């Protein structure tokens, strides 16, 4: 009897855990099966290693985006934040403009901290514009996207910054791993866990849901809209900056166009993962699966040398199809 009870308890828990992500989990599994059957390089350890590394950057951006979507907004500035973040490190450690760089090669982490502060500041500004300036999040973040992108171009004087900190590049290089898991993926996993805890188990996280679900209700219940919104966009900005730090190491130089278009992939991952554009809904697990699905399609498709345009079309169709199925699913239940 008691055994039975605990079993059902577990079943309920499992059901809750997987509710909403069952479908995309199926899609992911299906993709894995298809690609491992058709391509002999996909399901290898190096294939998986690459997949994990390749997903990390978008994966991190997407988590920030998910938070912004849950709070009832969107953050279209993440690509620019990531770009600027990578350029800040490059700028401070490169010999492009000076004989001796501002920071010694090993001190790159100071630049990384500055980049994170920049991301947070940008988020704070967007949050403030949205909350106190009544700006639609779309406009506030598109505006900041343009401003930060231009600032990046100005900072690196429209050229590529080469010869950046070797220590930094090595830190995130392909060979740096822990227990065979690439460091980039570890950063991502840590952020997944942190974001999960924030959203599920902290007041701030629950306030994000409350504000996104119904801002007026939240306000009447004594939640500070300003703090919640600013905090959410700051978190998104910080994650974008961290993604930028990984991106900079990955492209090994400061490029004024780095990170362009990141927001589309991040939004795609979030909505495939079940985040609702009207706010108040979205899950970390869903977004993680969404990110992996997108990258799996790209990696698997490339492994089979599919037409690159066709691959992107599949991603587009998938965005629509997942949300469509989710809507139908909700209607029926």
């Amino acid at each position: 009897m008691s055994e039975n009870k605990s079993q059902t308890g577990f079943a309920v828990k499992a059901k809750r855990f997987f509710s909403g992500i069952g479908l995309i989990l199926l899609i992911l599994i299906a993709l894995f099966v298809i690609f491992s059957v058709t391509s002999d390089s996909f399901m290898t350890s190096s294939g998986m290693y690459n997949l994990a590394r390749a997903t990390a950057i978008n994966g991190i951006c997407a988590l920030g985006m998910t938070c912004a979507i849950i709070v009832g907004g969107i953050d279209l500035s993440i690509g620019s934040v990531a770009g600027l973040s990578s350029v800040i490190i490059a700028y401070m450690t490169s010999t492009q403009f000076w004989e001796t760089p501002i920071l010694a090669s090993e001190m790159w982490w100071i630049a990384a901290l500055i980049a994170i502060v920049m991301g947070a500041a940008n988020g704070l500004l967007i949050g403030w514009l949205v909350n106190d300036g009544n700006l639609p999040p779309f406009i506030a973040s598109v505006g900041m996207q343009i401003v930060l992108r231009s600032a990046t171009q100005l900072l690196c004087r429209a050229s590529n910054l080469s010869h950046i900190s070797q220590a930094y590049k090595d830190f995130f290089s392909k060979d740096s791993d822990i227990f065979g898991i690439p460091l980039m993926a570890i950063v991502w996993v840590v952020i997944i866990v942190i974001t999960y805890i924030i959203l599920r188990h902290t007041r701030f996280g629950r306030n994000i849901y409350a504000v996104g679900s119904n801002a007026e209700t939240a306000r009447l219940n004594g939640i500070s809209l300003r703090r919640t919104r600013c905090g959410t966009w700051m978190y998104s900005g910080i994650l974008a900056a961290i993604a930028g730090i990984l991106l900079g190491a990955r492209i090994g130089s400061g490029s004024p166009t780095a990170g362009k278009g990141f927001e589309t992939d991040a939004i795609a991952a979030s909505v495939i993962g079940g985040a609702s554009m009207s706010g108040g809904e979205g899950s970390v697990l869903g977004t993680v699966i969404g990110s992996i699905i997108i990258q799996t399609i790209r990696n698997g498709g490339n492994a089979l040398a599919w037409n690159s345009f066709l691959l992107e079309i599949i991603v587009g169709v998938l965005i629509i199809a997942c949300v469509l199925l989710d809507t139908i699913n909700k209607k029926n239940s």
Partner: protein
Amino acid sequence: EESASASASASEPAGSDNQGGSDAELPLDVVVQVKATESDFWQYMIVGAEQYAKDYPDRVKVTIQGPTKELDYDKAVSLLEQVVANKPDAIVLASSSSDATVPAVEDAMDQGIPVVLADNMLNTEKYTAFLATDNIAGGALAADALVEGMEAKGKTSGKVLVVSSSAGSLVMEARIKGFTEQMKNKYTQYEMYPEILYCENDVAKALDVCAQTFSANKDIVGVFGGNNMSGNGASRYIAQEKLADEVTCVCYDSDPEEIKNLRNGDLYAMIIQDPAGFGYKGVDMAYKVVAEGYDVEANFPDKYIDTGCTKITAENIDAPELQALIDPTLLKDGKATREWPTYF
């Protein structure tokens, strides 16, 4: 500037050579990764690579890879890492970033997969060979052509404008550097307009920025378009406003609009590279290295093969031997043939 104008000379087809020592099975599995698939220029490189596979089906099997957008450095790296993981027999790579792909390329070289670079040099010593236009020389050649055109119109002073596609493109930087230095050192009678105009690879924007800059600066006598999109916009502006008698325009790379304007006299010259040659000769190099044990360093100490660039003006635009160079897609449709240069 000798080297820059060197190019398409005739030779015997690189056909039935001796078989070198190699353990790889023929046809070789060669992956060609371009900077972006959604661009005419890189489609030309693809045409060249596929042409080689068509010419020598027993030698190579070519697979095309590439992100859709040139700015997707991140995707380009993922792609290349994956390509390397698949262990092809050789890789021909046009990389949009000089640093991003370095680890993956080094990885490939360490595993014994030769990597032939095209168009853009990487910040590493580990590569098999590098086929590219000398863009600094090409920029200088553009400056020479521009001055030639301006002088022909009797303009011996005035401002010269540069339109670039987008900030942060390495080859674009090199061209503009070559152009600007040549202008500043050799043709001091002209003044460089202080701001570079960017068009984000959008012809409409190129048109707009030209229109606005021209109306504010009536003394502009020359324009250099850094790639086909910027050149397309600039020359179209000149054609529209019927400024051909006043303004000379020279641009890098070809596209249909430029060809039309060149014929009409609205564009004075195009500096064209050999993207199909990157593809064709790149795959050829890969084959020779793997299958025939070709020693690059013995023949090219710095591993660099200049594929040259060609100045196209109204005089030589109709030369039959240049047609497939100007529009490599003619090769694909079988409307033209060309003799490939024998650098090696």
